[in-house]
C-alpha cells in the first residue's frame, strides 16, 4: 500500500518535471544565443589574431551548424544533449560533457564540505537558540545569520586568506591538492550557510516545541534532554533537509566566487572563463546541467519529506510543486 502510493507519487512528480526541464533547456539555448557577435568570427579571430575573411567565417559557420535556423539548432542540440553529448567547447575544442565532468568533483568536494560544516555549527546552535530564547545563544544565532547573509563571500574569503595564510602562515591560500587547500574555501562558504541554517533550525524547533505531543511528553516527566533529542529535533529536521537540499544546488552554482578567490579549478571557474570567451556550447551545457541538477535535488528533497513525514504524503496528493528554489 505504502509502496504503491510512493511509486505513484514518484511517477507523478517525475512527469511534472518534464515541462520544467523543457523550459530549462530552452532558457539555456536562448541565453547562450542572446550574445551579440558571431562565434565563428570570434573563433577565427582568436586563432589567427586578425579579422577573418567572410569566406572563412561562412565556412566555419557551416561546419558548426550555425547557419541553420535557431529552432533547428535547438532541436539538434537537445537531441544530442539527451544522449549526453553537449557539443564541443569553442575555446578548448574538448567535449563540454568531459570538461564539466572533470570539473565537477572539485566543486562537489568543496560544497559538500561547506554544507557539512554549516550543519555542524547550525544544528546545536539553532536548538540552543530555540530552547534558550532571548539568551546569549539566541543573540549569537541572530548575529551569525546576519553576518552570514550580509558579508560577501569575497570579503570573507580574503579576510581568511589574510589571517590564516598571510599572518599565521598555517594554511595555503590558493591551489587544490589535498585537504589543507580545502579548509579556507570551505570555511568561507560554510559561514554564510551556517547563518541561514541556524535560523531555520531555531524556527523549526520553536514550532515543534509548541506541539501537543511535546507538552505531553514533558508533562509525563520525560527529561528535557530526552524530549529535545527524541521528539523535538527529529521533527525539526524536516525544514533543515529542505534548506540543505536547496542550498546544495545554490552552493554548487555559487562556488563561482569562492573558486575564483582561491584559484580552485572547478565548475565555477570553468564557466566564468567560458563566459569571458563567449564559449556558447560550454555555457549552454552548464546551464542545462545545473538546471537539471537543481530540479533533481528538489525532487529528492520532496521524496525525502514524503518518506519522513506521512502527513506530507496526504498533502502531496495535490501535487505540491517543488519548494521555491
Amino acid at each position, binding site marked *: 500500500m505504502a509502496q504503491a502510493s510512493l511509486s505513484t507519487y514518484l511517477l507523478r512528480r517525475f512527469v511534472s518535471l518534464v515541462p520544467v526541464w523543457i523550459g530549462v533547456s530552452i*532558457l539555456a539555448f536562448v541565453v547562450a544565443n*542572446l550574445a551579440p557577435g558571431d562565434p565563428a568570427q570570434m573563433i577565427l579571430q582568436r586563432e589567427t589574431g586578425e579579422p577573418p575573411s567572410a569566406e572563412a567565417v561562412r565556412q566555419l559557420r557551416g561546419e558548426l551548424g550555425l547557419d541553420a535556423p535557431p529552432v533547428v539548432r535547438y532541436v539538434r542540440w537537445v537531441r544530442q544533449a539527451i544522449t549526453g553529448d553537449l557539443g564541443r567547447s569553442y575555446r578548448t575544442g574538448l567535449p563540454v560533457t568531459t570538461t564539466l565532468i572533470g570539473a565537477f568533483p572539485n566543486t562537489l568536494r568543496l560544497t559538500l564540505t561547506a554544507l557539512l560544516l554549516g550543519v555542524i555549527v547550525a544544528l546545536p546552535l539553532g536548538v540552543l537558540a530555540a530552547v534558550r530564547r532571548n539568551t546569549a545563544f539566541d543573540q549569537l544565532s541572530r548575529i551569525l545569520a546576519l553576518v552570514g547573509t550580509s*558579508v*560577501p563571500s*569575497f570579503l570573507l574569503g*580574503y579576510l581568511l586568506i589574510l589571517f590564516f595564510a598571510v599572518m599565521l602562515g598555517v594554511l595555503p591560500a590558493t591551489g587544490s591538492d589535498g585537504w589543507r587547500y580545502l579548509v579556507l574555501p570551505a570555511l568561507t562558504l560554510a559561514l554564510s550557510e551556517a547563518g541561514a541554517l541556524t535560523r531555520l533550525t531555531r524556527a523549526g524547533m520553536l514550532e515543534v516545541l509548541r506541539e501537543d505531543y511535546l507538552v505531553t511528553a514533558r508533562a509525563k516527566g520525560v527529561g528535557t534532554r530526552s524530549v529535545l533529542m527524541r521528539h523535538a529535533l527529529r521533527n525539526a529536521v524536516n525544514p533543515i533537509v529542505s534548506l540543505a537540499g536547496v542550498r546544495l544546488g545554490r552552493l554548487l552554482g555559487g562556488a563561482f566566487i569562492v573558486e575564483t578567490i582561491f584559484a580552485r579549478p572547478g565548475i565555477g571557474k570553468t564557466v566564468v572563463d567560458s563566459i*569571458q570567451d563567449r564559449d556558447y556550447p560550454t555555457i549552454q551545457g552548464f546551464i542545462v546541467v*545545473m538546471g537539471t541538477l*537543481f530540479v533533481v535535488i528538489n525532487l529528492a528533497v520532496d521524496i525525502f519529506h514524503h518518506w519522513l513525514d506521512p502527513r506530507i504524503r496526504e498533502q502531496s496528493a495535490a501535487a505540491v510543486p517543488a519548494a521555491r528554489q
Partner: protein
Amino acid sequence: MGRFGRIDSLLRDRTALAGLVLVSLFVLVGFIAPVITGHDPNLIDAVRRLEGPSRAHPLGTDNLGRDMLSRLAYGARWSLGAVAIATALIMSIGVSVGTLAGFYGGLLDEGVMRVVDVLLAFPSLLLAIAIAGMLGTGMTSVIIALTIVWWASYARIVRGMVLSIRQRDFVTAAKSLGAGDLHIVVYHILPNIFAPVAILATVEMGELILAVAGLGFLGIGVQPPAPEWGTMVNDGRSYIMSAPQLMIYPGLAISLAVIGFNLLGDGLRDIFDPRGLSDRHWLNSHGQQ
C-alpha cells in the same frame, strides 16, 4: 507573543530602526558624494600611489593614486543605483504579471507559472551571471540580467496573494456593485498587496546588492574604472599582500549596506507579521555565494 511580547517588539523596532539608519546613511552618502571629499573618484595621481590616510585623503589612495573615500562614496551611487533601478523594474514586472495571472487564472496563469517555475529552477546568481556574461559587461547588462532572474519570485508571491484576495467578501461586493476589473485591481487588490511586496523588496535589495557586487567581482559586471564596490574589490585583488585595505574597504561598504537592508527588512517583517513566522524566509532566500 507571550511574556516577552513587549521586549520583543521593542527589540524588533530597534532592529528596523538600525536598518533604516544604515540604509538612509548610504543613500545620503550616494547623493552627497561630491560634497564629501571634493576629489574626482577617477583622478589618477601616479605620485600618490597607495598612500596611507592623510588630511587630503582620509582613507588613503589606491594603486593608481585615486582617493579611496571618494571612490567608496561614488560607489554607493553605482551599487545602490543599479539595485534601485533593478528593483523598480522587478517590482513592476513581477506585480503586473502576478496580478494578471492570479486575477484572470486559466491558461494565462498556467503559462506564466510554468515560465516562473523554469526561472526558479536555477540558483539566481548563477543565472544572472550567465545572462549578464552573455549580454556583455556594463551597468545595463547587469540590470537586465537581475530583472530577468528576479521578477519570477515576485510574480509567484503576488499571484498567491491575489488568488486569496480575489475570493474575499469585499471583492465579491465590489463586483456585485458592477465594478470593472481595473477598478477592483487598483482599489481593492493592489492596496492589499502593497505592504508585503514592499517588505519583500527591502529584503531582496540586500541580495541584489550582493549580486551586483558579485558580478563586479567576477569581472562581468560594471567595468573599471567605475568605482562600483565589487569591481573595486576585484581591482584590489593583486594588492592583497601590500595593501589589503583596497579590498577590505569596499568589501565592508557592501557588507554594511546589505546588513542595513537585511535589518530593515527583518524589522518590517516582524512588525507586519505578528504570527512570528519571520524565520521561514531563510528557506526561501536567494542566499549568497
